[in-house]
Protein backbone atom coordinates (compact mmCIF):
# COMPACT_ATOMS: atom_id res chain seq x y z
CA UNK A 1 0.00 0.00 0.00
CA UNK A 2 1.57 3.28 -1.05
CA UNK A 3 0.89 7.01 -1.34
CA UNK A 4 -2.75 7.65 -2.08
CA UNK A 5 -3.89 4.24 -0.86
CA UNK A 6 -2.11 4.70 2.45
CA UNK A 7 -3.58 8.17 2.85
CA UNK A 8 -7.07 6.82 2.19
CA UNK A 9 -6.46 3.95 4.61
CA UNK A 10 -5.76 6.41 7.40
CA UNK A 11 -8.18 9.16 6.46
CA UNK A 12 -11.24 7.12 5.53
CA UNK A 13 -12.11 6.10 9.12
CA UNK A 14 -11.45 9.63 10.30
CA UNK A 15 -13.65 11.14 7.61
CA UNK A 16 -16.28 8.52 8.46
CA UNK A 17 -16.21 9.54 12.12
CA UNK A 18 -16.44 13.21 11.13
CA UNK A 19 -19.41 12.56 8.86
CA UNK A 20 -21.20 10.58 11.60
CA UNK A 21 -20.47 13.33 14.10
CA UNK A 22 -21.67 15.97 11.65
CA UNK A 23 -24.90 14.12 10.82
CA UNK A 24 -25.61 13.32 14.46
CA UNK A 25 -24.90 16.87 15.56
CA UNK A 26 -26.94 18.39 12.72
CA UNK A 27 -29.91 16.14 13.50
CA UNK A 28 -29.58 16.94 17.18
CA UNK A 29 -29.40 20.67 16.58
CA UNK A 30 -32.27 20.52 14.13
CA UNK A 31 -34.35 18.65 16.74
CA UNK A 32 -33.51 21.24 19.41
CA UNK A 33 -34.27 24.03 16.94
CA UNK A 34 -37.67 22.59 16.05
CA UNK A 35 -38.47 22.06 19.75
CA UNK A 36 -37.42 25.64 20.48
CA UNK A 37 -39.58 26.96 17.65
CA UNK A 38 -42.52 24.94 18.84
CA UNK A 39 -41.98 26.35 22.34
CA UNK A 40 -41.88 29.90 21.01
CA UNK A 41 -45.10 29.34 19.02
CA UNK A 42 -46.81 28.02 22.13
CA UNK A 43 -45.53 30.96 24.16
CA UNK A 44 -46.70 33.35 21.46
CA UNK A 45 -50.18 31.82 21.42
CA UNK A 46 -50.43 31.94 25.21
CA UNK A 47 -49.17 35.53 25.38
CA UNK A 48 -51.56 36.62 22.63
CA UNK A 49 -54.52 35.06 24.47
CA UNK A 50 -53.64 36.85 27.72
CA UNK A 51 -53.11 40.13 25.86
CA UNK A 52 -56.40 39.84 24.05
CA UNK A 53 -58.36 39.38 27.29
CA UNK A 54 -56.60 42.37 28.84
CA UNK A 55 -56.94 44.53 25.71
CA UNK A 56 -60.66 43.78 25.40
CA UNK A 57 -61.12 44.68 29.03
CA UNK A 58 -59.12 47.91 28.75
CA UNK A 59 -60.88 48.95 25.54
CA UNK A 60 -64.24 48.35 27.24
CA UNK A 61 -63.06 50.59 30.06
CA UNK A 62 -62.53 53.34 27.51
CA UNK A 63 -58.74 53.37 27.28
CA UNK A 64 -57.41 54.42 23.91
CA UNK A 65 -55.32 51.89 21.97
CA UNK A 66 -52.20 54.15 22.13
CA UNK A 67 -52.40 54.31 25.92
CA UNK A 68 -52.97 50.60 26.25
CA UNK A 69 -49.83 49.85 24.22
CA UNK A 70 -47.86 52.12 26.51
CA UNK A 71 -48.68 49.72 29.34
CA UNK A 72 -47.02 46.83 27.53
CA UNK A 73 -43.79 48.60 26.70
CA UNK A 74 -40.74 46.90 28.13
CA UNK A 75 -42.05 43.34 27.81
CA UNK A 76 -38.87 41.36 27.28
CA UNK A 77 -39.91 38.97 24.53
CA UNK A 78 -42.27 41.25 22.62
CA UNK A 79 -40.52 43.05 19.77
CA UNK A 80 -43.59 44.85 18.51
CA UNK A 81 -47.33 44.79 18.81
CA UNK A 82 -50.22 46.59 17.19
CA UNK A 83 -53.95 46.92 17.65
CA UNK A 84 -55.96 46.86 14.43
CA UNK A 85 -59.58 47.59 13.79
CA UNK A 86 -61.98 45.16 12.19
CA UNK A 87 -60.81 46.23 8.72
CA UNK A 88 -57.26 45.56 9.82
CA UNK A 89 -56.24 49.19 9.80
CA UNK A 90 -53.59 49.87 12.39
CA UNK A 91 -55.01 51.91 15.28
CA UNK A 92 -51.88 51.96 17.36
CA UNK A 93 -48.55 50.21 17.44
CA UNK A 94 -45.47 49.97 19.49
CA UNK A 95 -42.04 48.62 18.62
CA UNK A 96 -38.71 48.16 20.27
CA UNK A 97 -37.01 49.32 17.05
CA UNK A 98 -37.55 52.74 15.53
CA UNK A 99 -40.26 52.60 12.89
CA UNK A 100 -40.08 48.82 12.60
CA UNK A 101 -43.46 47.13 12.28
CA UNK A 102 -43.21 44.58 9.47
CA UNK A 103 -46.92 44.40 8.81
CA UNK A 104 -48.22 44.92 5.32
CA UNK A 105 -51.35 44.32 3.30
CA UNK A 106 -49.90 40.92 2.38
CA UNK A 107 -50.09 39.88 6.02
CA UNK A 108 -53.63 41.02 6.67
CA UNK A 109 -55.10 37.77 5.36
CA UNK A 110 -52.99 35.52 7.55
CA UNK A 111 -54.70 33.32 10.07
CA UNK A 112 -51.71 31.21 11.08
CA UNK A 113 -48.55 32.43 12.83
CA UNK A 114 -45.62 33.17 10.57
CA UNK A 115 -41.90 33.59 11.03
CA UNK A 116 -39.95 36.58 9.84
CA UNK A 117 -36.19 36.67 9.55
CA UNK A 118 -34.54 39.80 10.78
CA UNK A 119 -30.95 40.79 11.48
CA UNK A 120 -31.56 40.07 15.17
CA UNK A 121 -32.96 36.61 14.53
CA UNK A 122 -36.31 34.98 13.88
CA UNK A 123 -39.41 36.86 14.91
CA UNK A 124 -42.64 34.89 15.34
CA UNK A 125 -45.67 36.88 14.18
CA UNK A 126 -49.29 36.33 14.94
CA UNK A 127 -52.42 38.18 13.89
CA UNK A 128 -55.50 37.15 15.84
CA UNK A 129 -58.94 38.68 16.41
CA UNK A 130 -60.56 39.57 19.70
CA UNK A 131 -63.71 41.47 20.54
CA UNK A 132 -65.22 43.61 23.18
CA UNK A 133 -68.39 42.57 24.96
CA UNK A 134 -70.39 44.89 22.69
CA UNK A 135 -69.26 42.83 19.70
CA UNK A 136 -66.73 45.32 18.34
CA UNK A 137 -63.96 43.31 16.65
CA UNK A 138 -60.27 44.16 16.90
CA UNK A 139 -57.08 42.42 15.89
CA UNK A 140 -53.89 41.99 17.82
CA UNK A 141 -50.65 41.81 15.87
CA UNK A 142 -47.74 40.51 17.92
CA UNK A 143 -44.06 40.01 17.11
CA UNK A 144 -42.51 37.65 19.59
CA UNK A 145 -39.11 36.12 20.07
CA UNK A 146 -37.41 34.21 22.83
CA UNK A 147 -34.14 35.97 22.52
CA UNK A 148 -32.42 33.82 25.14
CA UNK A 149 -33.43 30.76 23.21
CA UNK A 150 -32.12 32.30 19.99
CA UNK A 151 -28.84 33.13 21.70
CA UNK A 152 -28.69 29.62 23.09
CA UNK A 153 -29.25 28.14 19.64
CA UNK A 154 -26.68 30.48 18.09
CA UNK A 155 -24.21 29.55 20.83
CA UNK A 156 -24.90 25.87 20.24
CA UNK A 157 -24.17 26.38 16.53
CA UNK A 158 -21.01 28.30 17.34
CA UNK A 159 -19.87 25.62 19.79
CA UNK A 160 -20.56 22.97 17.21
CA UNK A 161 -18.48 24.83 14.63
CA UNK A 162 -15.63 25.30 17.09
CA UNK A 163 -15.68 21.65 18.19
CA UNK A 164 -15.97 20.46 14.62
CA UNK A 165 -13.09 22.69 13.48
CA UNK A 166 -10.89 21.60 16.39
CA UNK A 167 -11.77 17.97 15.71
CA UNK A 168 -10.89 18.37 12.05
CA UNK A 169 -7.63 20.20 12.81
CA UNK A 170 -6.50 17.78 15.52
CA UNK A 171 -7.55 14.80 13.42
CA UNK A 172 -5.75 16.04 10.34
CA UNK A 173 -2.56 16.77 12.30
CA UNK A 174 -2.75 13.43 14.13
CA UNK A 175 -3.46 11.33 11.08
CA UNK A 176 -0.90 13.17 8.98
CA UNK A 177 1.63 12.40 11.72
CA UNK A 178 0.62 8.74 11.78
CA UNK A 179 0.66 8.68 8.00
CA UNK A 180 4.16 10.15 7.89
CA UNK A 181 5.40 7.67 10.50
CA UNK A 182 3.84 4.80 8.62
CA UNK A 183 5.41 6.05 5.39
CA UNK A 184 8.83 6.21 7.03
CA UNK A 185 8.34 2.76 8.52
CA UNK A 186 7.39 1.37 5.12
CA UNK A 187 10.38 3.08 3.50
CA UNK A 188 12.69 1.52 6.13
CA UNK A 189 11.07 -1.85 5.61
CA UNK A 190 11.57 -1.58 1.87
CA UNK A 191 15.20 -0.57 2.42
CA UNK A 192 15.71 -3.57 4.71
CA UNK A 193 14.05 -5.86 2.17
CA UNK A 194 16.24 -4.43 -0.58
CA UNK A 195 19.35 -4.95 1.56
CA UNK A 196 18.27 -8.50 2.28
CA UNK A 197 17.72 -9.18 -1.43
CA UNK A 198 21.11 -7.66 -2.18
CA UNK A 199 22.79 -9.87 0.44
CA UNK A 200 21.04 -12.92 -0.93
CA UNK A 201 22.13 -12.06 -4.46
CA UNK A 202 25.67 -11.47 -3.29
CA UNK A 203 25.70 -14.76 -1.36
CA UNK A 204 24.72 -16.57 -4.55
CA UNK A 205 27.36 -14.70 -6.58
CA UNK A 206 29.97 -15.44 -3.90
CA UNK A 207 29.16 -19.13 -3.88
CA UNK A 208 29.30 -19.25 -7.65
CA UNK A 209 32.53 -17.23 -7.86
CA UNK A 210 34.21 -19.31 -5.14
CA UNK A 211 33.34 -22.47 -7.00
CA UNK A 212 34.67 -21.05 -10.26
CA UNK A 213 37.88 -19.83 -8.54
CA UNK A 214 38.42 -23.23 -7.00
CA UNK A 215 37.86 -24.98 -10.30
CA UNK A 216 40.29 -22.64 -12.09
CA UNK A 217 42.99 -22.77 -9.43
CA UNK A 218 43.47 -26.54 -9.57
CA UNK A 219 44.46 -26.71 -13.27
CA UNK A 220 46.35 -23.44 -12.82
CA UNK A 221 48.51 -25.07 -10.09
CA UNK A 222 49.20 -27.98 -12.42
CA UNK A 223 50.07 -25.54 -15.20
CA UNK A 224 52.40 -23.65 -12.88
CA UNK A 225 54.20 -26.87 -11.93
CA UNK A 226 54.44 -27.80 -15.61
CA UNK A 227 56.06 -24.45 -16.42
CA UNK A 228 58.44 -24.98 -13.47
CA UNK A 229 59.51 -28.30 -14.96
CA UNK A 230 59.69 -26.90 -18.46
CA UNK A 231 61.93 -24.01 -17.37
CA UNK A 232 64.74 -26.48 -16.46
CA UNK A 233 64.39 -28.58 -19.57
CA UNK A 234 63.76 -26.17 -22.47
CA UNK A 235 66.64 -24.68 -24.52
CA UNK A 236 67.97 -21.37 -23.30
CA UNK A 237 66.57 -19.63 -26.39
CA UNK A 238 62.94 -20.11 -25.20
CA UNK A 239 63.61 -19.98 -21.43
CA UNK A 240 62.56 -16.34 -21.24
CA UNK A 241 59.23 -17.06 -22.89
CA UNK A 242 58.60 -19.90 -20.46
CA UNK A 243 59.45 -17.57 -17.57
CA UNK A 244 56.98 -15.03 -18.97
CA UNK A 245 54.28 -17.71 -19.20
CA UNK A 246 54.99 -18.72 -15.62
CA UNK A 247 54.70 -15.07 -14.49
CA UNK A 248 51.39 -14.70 -16.28
CA UNK A 249 50.06 -17.83 -14.59
CA UNK A 250 51.09 -16.35 -11.20
CA UNK A 251 49.34 -13.15 -12.13
CA UNK A 252 46.14 -15.08 -12.86
CA UNK A 253 46.53 -16.92 -9.57
CA UNK A 254 46.92 -13.63 -7.69
CA UNK A 255 43.78 -12.24 -9.29
CA UNK A 256 41.87 -15.34 -8.31
CA UNK A 257 43.27 -15.07 -4.77
CA UNK A 258 42.07 -11.47 -4.54
CA UNK A 259 38.63 -12.52 -5.68
CA UNK A 260 38.54 -15.30 -3.15
CA UNK A 261 39.83 -13.05 -0.35
CA UNK A 262 37.24 -10.40 -1.10
CA UNK A 263 34.42 -12.92 -0.88
CA UNK A 264 35.62 -14.61 2.30
CA UNK A 265 34.00 -13.41 5.57
CA UNK A 266 36.34 -11.18 7.53
CA UNK A 267 37.40 -12.04 11.07
CA UNK A 268 39.40 -9.04 12.31
CA UNK A 269 42.04 -9.63 15.00
CA UNK A 270 41.82 -6.51 17.10
CA UNK A 271 44.82 -4.69 18.49
CA UNK A 272 45.49 -1.11 19.52
CA UNK A 273 47.37 0.56 16.70
CA UNK A 274 48.13 4.24 15.97
CA UNK A 275 46.17 5.40 12.95
CA UNK A 276 49.18 7.32 11.69
CA UNK A 277 51.17 4.08 11.40
CA UNK A 278 48.39 2.35 9.46
CA UNK A 279 48.02 5.22 7.02
CA UNK A 280 51.78 5.54 6.54
CA UNK A 281 52.13 1.78 5.93
CA UNK A 282 49.31 1.92 3.37
CA UNK A 283 50.88 4.89 1.57
CA UNK A 284 54.33 3.25 1.57
CA UNK A 285 52.86 0.06 0.09
CA UNK A 286 51.14 2.12 -2.56
CA UNK A 287 54.31 4.04 -3.36
CA UNK A 288 56.22 0.80 -3.69
CA UNK A 289 53.74 -0.18 -6.41
CA UNK A 290 53.63 3.19 -8.14
CA UNK A 291 55.52 6.20 -6.74
CA UNK A 292 53.73 9.53 -7.26
CA UNK A 293 55.57 12.72 -6.46
CA UNK A 294 53.36 15.01 -8.51
CA UNK A 295 50.57 14.95 -5.97
CA UNK A 296 51.02 16.57 -2.57
CA UNK A 297 50.49 14.33 0.46
CA UNK A 298 49.00 15.56 3.74
CA UNK A 299 48.25 13.75 6.93
CA UNK A 300 46.80 15.50 9.97
CA UNK A 301 45.35 14.57 13.32
CA UNK A 302 44.64 17.00 16.16
CA UNK A 303 45.87 14.47 18.70
CA UNK A 304 47.31 11.00 18.08
CA UNK A 305 44.45 8.69 17.18
CA UNK A 306 44.56 5.01 18.08
CA UNK A 307 42.42 2.36 16.52
CA UNK A 308 41.31 -0.89 18.07
CA UNK A 309 41.38 -2.74 14.77
CA UNK A 310 42.95 -5.47 12.68
CA UNK A 311 46.14 -3.79 11.55
CA UNK A 312 46.62 -5.63 8.25
CA UNK A 313 42.94 -5.27 7.27
CA UNK A 314 43.04 -1.55 8.03
CA UNK A 315 46.21 -1.14 5.99
CA UNK A 316 44.42 -2.95 3.14
CA UNK A 317 41.43 -0.61 3.51
CA UNK A 318 43.51 2.61 3.45
CA UNK A 319 45.66 1.21 0.66
CA UNK A 320 42.53 0.79 -1.48
CA UNK A 321 41.23 4.26 -0.64
CA UNK A 322 44.59 5.95 -1.24
CA UNK A 323 45.08 4.04 -4.49
CA UNK A 324 41.74 5.37 -5.69
CA UNK A 325 42.58 8.89 -4.57
CA UNK A 326 46.01 8.95 -6.26
CA UNK A 327 44.67 7.40 -9.44
CA UNK A 328 41.96 10.06 -9.67
CA UNK A 329 44.32 12.97 -8.98
CA UNK A 330 46.70 14.34 -11.59
CA UNK A 331 47.72 17.37 -9.59
CA UNK A 332 46.75 18.87 -6.26
CA UNK A 333 46.70 16.91 -3.05
CA UNK A 334 45.62 13.75 -1.34
CA UNK A 335 44.99 14.16 2.35
CA UNK A 336 43.97 12.15 5.36
CA UNK A 337 42.51 13.95 8.37
CA UNK A 338 41.59 12.25 11.60
CA UNK A 339 39.71 13.40 14.67
CA UNK A 340 37.69 11.95 17.50
CA UNK A 341 34.15 13.06 18.20
CA UNK A 342 31.86 11.67 20.92
CA UNK A 343 33.58 8.31 21.27
CA UNK A 344 33.85 7.97 17.53
CA UNK A 345 36.81 8.24 15.24
CA UNK A 346 36.32 10.19 12.05
CA UNK A 347 38.82 9.78 9.23
CA UNK A 348 38.48 11.72 6.00
CA UNK A 349 40.40 10.63 2.91
CA UNK A 350 40.19 13.44 0.37
CA UNK A 351 41.60 14.19 -3.02
CA UNK A 352 41.38 17.08 -5.43
CA UNK A 353 41.00 14.82 -8.42
CA UNK A 354 38.41 14.26 -11.14
CA UNK A 355 35.59 13.36 -8.82
CA UNK A 356 32.81 10.89 -9.46
CA UNK A 357 29.66 11.51 -11.54
CA UNK A 358 26.53 11.70 -9.37
CA UNK A 359 24.87 8.78 -11.18
CA UNK A 360 27.84 6.50 -10.38
CA UNK A 361 28.17 7.56 -6.77
CA UNK A 362 25.49 5.25 -5.25
CA UNK A 363 27.14 2.16 -6.79
CA UNK A 364 30.83 2.74 -6.08
CA UNK A 365 30.89 0.35 -3.11
CA UNK A 366 29.18 -2.41 -5.10
CA UNK A 367 31.38 -5.43 -5.86
CA UNK A 368 32.81 -5.58 -9.38
CA UNK A 369 31.64 -2.05 -10.15
CA UNK A 370 34.44 0.00 -11.65
CA UNK A 371 35.00 2.92 -13.94
CA UNK A 372 38.67 2.10 -14.53
CA UNK A 373 39.87 0.35 -17.62
CA UNK A 374 42.04 -2.14 -15.69
CA UNK A 375 40.16 -2.22 -12.39
CA UNK A 376 38.25 -5.17 -11.00
CA UNK A 377 35.79 -3.22 -8.83
CA UNK A 378 36.94 -4.84 -5.62
CA UNK A 379 38.96 -2.10 -3.87
CA UNK A 380 36.16 0.08 -2.53
CA UNK A 381 33.93 -2.90 -1.91
CA UNK A 382 36.65 -4.46 0.23
CA UNK A 383 37.29 -1.14 2.02
CA UNK A 384 33.62 -0.93 3.02
CA UNK A 385 33.60 -4.60 4.05
CA UNK A 386 36.63 -4.03 6.32
CA UNK A 387 35.14 -0.89 7.89
CA UNK A 388 31.79 -2.64 8.51
CA UNK A 389 33.61 -5.65 9.98
CA UNK A 390 35.00 -3.18 12.56
CA UNK A 391 31.51 -1.84 13.37
CA UNK A 392 32.05 1.34 11.41
CA UNK A 393 30.56 3.08 8.41
CA UNK A 394 31.96 4.64 5.30
CA UNK A 395 30.39 7.36 3.17
CA UNK A 396 31.41 9.34 0.12
CA UNK A 397 30.89 12.85 -1.20
CA UNK A 398 32.12 13.93 -4.56
CA UNK A 399 31.93 16.90 -6.90
CA UNK A 400 32.98 16.17 -10.47
CA UNK A 401 36.12 18.13 -11.31
CA UNK A 402 36.63 19.17 -7.68
CA UNK A 403 37.50 15.95 -5.88
CA UNK A 404 36.17 13.23 -3.64
CA UNK A 405 36.07 12.70 0.12
CA UNK A 406 35.56 9.36 1.83
CA UNK A 407 34.46 9.67 5.45
CA UNK A 408 35.10 6.75 7.74
CA UNK A 409 33.44 6.52 11.11
CA UNK A 410 34.81 3.96 13.54
CA UNK A 411 33.89 3.24 17.13
CA UNK A 412 36.37 4.07 19.87
CA UNK A 413 37.70 6.95 21.93
CA UNK A 414 40.75 7.15 19.77
CA UNK A 415 43.21 8.93 22.11
CA UNK A 416 45.70 7.44 24.54
Amino acid at each position, binding site marked *: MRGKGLLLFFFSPFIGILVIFFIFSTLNRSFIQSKAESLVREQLAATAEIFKVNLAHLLE*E*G*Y*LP*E*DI*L*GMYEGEENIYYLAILDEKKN*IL*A*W*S*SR*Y*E*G*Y*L*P*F*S*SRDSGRTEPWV*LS*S*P*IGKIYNRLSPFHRNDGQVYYLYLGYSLRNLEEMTARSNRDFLVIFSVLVAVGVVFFLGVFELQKKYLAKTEEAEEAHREKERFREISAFTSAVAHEIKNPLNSLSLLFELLQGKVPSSVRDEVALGKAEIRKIARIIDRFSDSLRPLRPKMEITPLGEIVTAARDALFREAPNTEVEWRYSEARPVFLNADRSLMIQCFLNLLRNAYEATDRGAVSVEAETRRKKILVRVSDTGRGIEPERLPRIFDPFFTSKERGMGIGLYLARKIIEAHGGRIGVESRPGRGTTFTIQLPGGGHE
Partner: protein
Amino acid sequence: MKPARVLGILACLIAAVPGLASRASSRQSAPFYNIDTEKQIEGTIRELVFEPRYQDKAPFLILIIEEMKTGEVFRAEISPAWFFDYDLHKGESVRVIGSTYFKDETQYIIARRLQCGGETYFLRDSRGFPSWRGGQMKRAGRHRGRGM
Protein backbone atom coordinates in the same frame (compact mmCIF):
# COMPACT_ATOMS: atom_id res chain seq x y z
CA MET B 1 -82.99 64.76 45.86
CA LYS B 2 -81.47 66.99 48.47
CA PRO B 3 -79.20 69.77 47.22
CA ALA B 4 -76.35 68.53 49.43
CA ARG B 5 -76.65 65.07 47.94
CA VAL B 6 -76.70 66.51 44.40
CA LEU B 7 -73.60 68.52 45.19
CA GLY B 8 -71.89 65.38 46.48
CA ILE B 9 -72.65 63.48 43.28
CA LEU B 10 -71.42 66.45 41.22
CA ALA B 11 -68.24 66.61 43.28
CA CYS B 12 -67.66 62.88 42.66
CA LEU B 13 -68.19 63.35 38.93
CA ILE B 14 -65.80 66.32 38.86
CA ALA B 15 -63.23 64.28 40.78
CA ALA B 16 -63.61 61.49 38.23
CA VAL B 17 -62.99 63.81 35.27
CA PRO B 18 -59.15 64.00 35.62
CA GLY B 19 -59.08 60.19 35.61
CA LEU B 20 -61.13 60.04 32.47
CA ALA B 21 -59.13 62.92 31.05
CA SER B 22 -55.89 61.04 31.66
CA ARG B 23 -57.31 57.94 29.97
CA ALA B 24 -58.32 60.10 27.05
CA SER B 25 -54.83 61.67 26.66
CA SER B 26 -53.92 59.74 23.54
CA ARG B 27 -50.33 58.72 22.71
CA GLN B 28 -49.80 59.49 19.07
CA SER B 29 -48.11 56.46 17.50
CA ALA B 30 -45.36 57.52 15.07
CA PRO B 31 -45.80 56.17 11.55
CA PHE B 32 -43.97 52.92 10.93
CA TYR B 33 -42.10 51.65 7.89
CA ASN B 34 -44.94 50.41 5.74
CA ILE B 35 -43.78 48.55 2.65
CA ASP B 36 -47.21 49.14 1.08
CA THR B 37 -46.38 52.82 0.71
CA GLU B 38 -42.82 52.40 -0.49
CA LYS B 39 -41.68 54.68 -3.30
CA GLN B 40 -38.60 56.31 -4.73
CA ILE B 41 -38.03 60.04 -4.88
CA GLU B 42 -35.25 61.95 -6.53
CA GLY B 43 -34.53 65.54 -5.74
CA THR B 44 -32.37 68.19 -4.16
CA ILE B 45 -31.68 68.77 -0.51
CA ARG B 46 -33.22 72.05 0.57
CA GLU B 47 -32.42 71.75 4.26
CA LEU B 48 -30.91 69.44 6.87
CA VAL B 49 -32.42 69.32 10.34
CA PHE B 50 -32.22 67.14 13.43
CA GLU B 51 -35.50 66.21 15.07
CA PRO B 52 -36.58 63.81 17.76
CA ARG B 53 -38.71 61.22 15.98
CA TYR B 54 -39.20 58.38 18.45
CA GLN B 55 -39.87 58.57 22.14
CA ASP B 56 -36.74 58.34 24.29
CA LYS B 57 -34.54 57.99 21.22
CA ALA B 58 -31.72 60.13 19.83
CA PRO B 59 -32.62 62.88 17.34
CA PHE B 60 -32.86 61.90 13.71
CA LEU B 61 -31.31 63.48 10.67
CA ILE B 62 -34.12 64.82 8.52
CA LEU B 63 -33.56 65.95 4.95
CA ILE B 64 -36.02 68.32 3.41
CA ILE B 65 -36.01 67.31 -0.22
CA GLU B 66 -37.63 68.98 -3.16
CA GLU B 67 -38.55 66.36 -5.71
CA MET B 68 -37.08 67.05 -9.08
CA LYS B 69 -40.03 66.25 -11.33
CA THR B 70 -43.05 67.36 -9.30
CA GLY B 71 -41.53 70.00 -7.06
CA GLU B 72 -43.16 68.31 -4.06
CA VAL B 73 -41.36 68.69 -0.76
CA PHE B 74 -40.65 65.64 1.38
CA ARG B 75 -39.28 65.38 4.88
CA ALA B 76 -37.01 62.33 4.67
CA GLU B 77 -36.24 60.54 7.93
CA ILE B 78 -32.73 59.17 7.49
CA SER B 79 -31.32 57.73 10.71
CA PRO B 80 -30.14 58.78 14.15
CA ALA B 81 -27.64 61.60 13.81
CA TRP B 82 -24.84 59.56 15.44
CA PHE B 83 -25.22 56.80 12.87
CA PHE B 84 -24.99 58.80 9.68
CA ASP B 85 -21.74 60.71 9.46
CA TYR B 86 -21.49 61.39 5.76
CA ASP B 87 -21.40 65.09 4.96
CA LEU B 88 -24.51 66.12 3.13
CA HIS B 89 -24.97 69.61 1.83
CA LYS B 90 -27.81 71.79 0.75
CA GLY B 91 -28.32 71.61 -2.98
CA GLU B 92 -26.93 68.09 -3.23
CA SER B 93 -28.88 65.67 -5.37
CA VAL B 94 -30.19 62.58 -3.63
CA ARG B 95 -32.30 59.59 -4.41
CA VAL B 96 -34.32 58.04 -1.61
CA ILE B 97 -36.29 54.82 -1.46
CA GLY B 98 -38.60 54.62 1.50
CA SER B 99 -42.05 54.39 2.99
CA THR B 100 -44.15 57.52 2.56
CA TYR B 101 -46.95 58.97 4.63
CA PHE B 102 -48.84 62.22 4.87
CA LYS B 103 -49.23 64.11 8.12
CA ASP B 104 -50.21 67.68 8.94
CA GLU B 105 -50.23 68.56 5.25
CA THR B 106 -46.64 67.45 4.92
CA GLN B 107 -45.22 64.55 2.90
CA TYR B 108 -42.87 62.31 4.86
CA ILE B 109 -40.65 59.49 3.76
CA ILE B 110 -38.88 56.99 6.04
CA ALA B 111 -35.72 56.25 4.10
CA ARG B 112 -34.60 52.68 3.52
CA ARG B 113 -31.95 53.45 0.94
CA LEU B 114 -30.20 56.71 0.24
CA GLN B 115 -28.09 57.43 -2.80
CA CYS B 116 -25.92 60.52 -2.91
CA GLY B 117 -22.45 61.47 -4.07
CA GLY B 118 -22.06 58.18 -5.97
CA GLU B 119 -22.65 56.12 -2.85
CA THR B 120 -25.57 54.09 -1.63
CA TYR B 121 -26.46 53.81 2.04
CA PHE B 122 -28.64 50.97 3.27
CA LEU B 123 -30.43 52.41 6.26
CA ARG B 124 -33.02 49.71 6.79
CA ASP B 125 -33.60 46.21 5.50
CA SER B 126 -36.40 45.34 3.07
CA ARG B 127 -38.94 45.11 5.91
CA GLY B 128 -37.78 48.31 7.57
CA PHE B 129 -35.49 46.95 10.28
CA PRO B 130 -33.06 49.75 11.14
CA SER B 131 -29.42 49.11 10.30
CA TRP B 132 -28.26 50.99 13.38
CA ARG B 133 -29.93 48.39 15.61
CA GLY B 134 -27.90 45.48 14.30
CA GLY B 135 -27.67 43.53 11.14
CA GLN B 136 -25.50 44.28 8.21
CA MET B 137 -24.52 47.89 7.69
CA LYS B 138 -23.83 48.13 4.02
CA ARG B 139 -22.54 50.81 1.77
CA ALA B 140 -21.99 50.40 -1.92
CA GLY B 141 -20.41 52.52 -4.62
CA ARG B 142 -17.64 55.07 -4.62
CA HIS B 143 -16.19 55.56 -1.17
CA ARG B 144 -16.01 59.05 0.15
CA GLY B 145 -15.74 60.15 3.75
CA ARG B 146 -16.34 57.67 6.52
CA GLY B 147 -19.95 57.03 5.67
CA MET B 148 -21.55 54.36 7.79
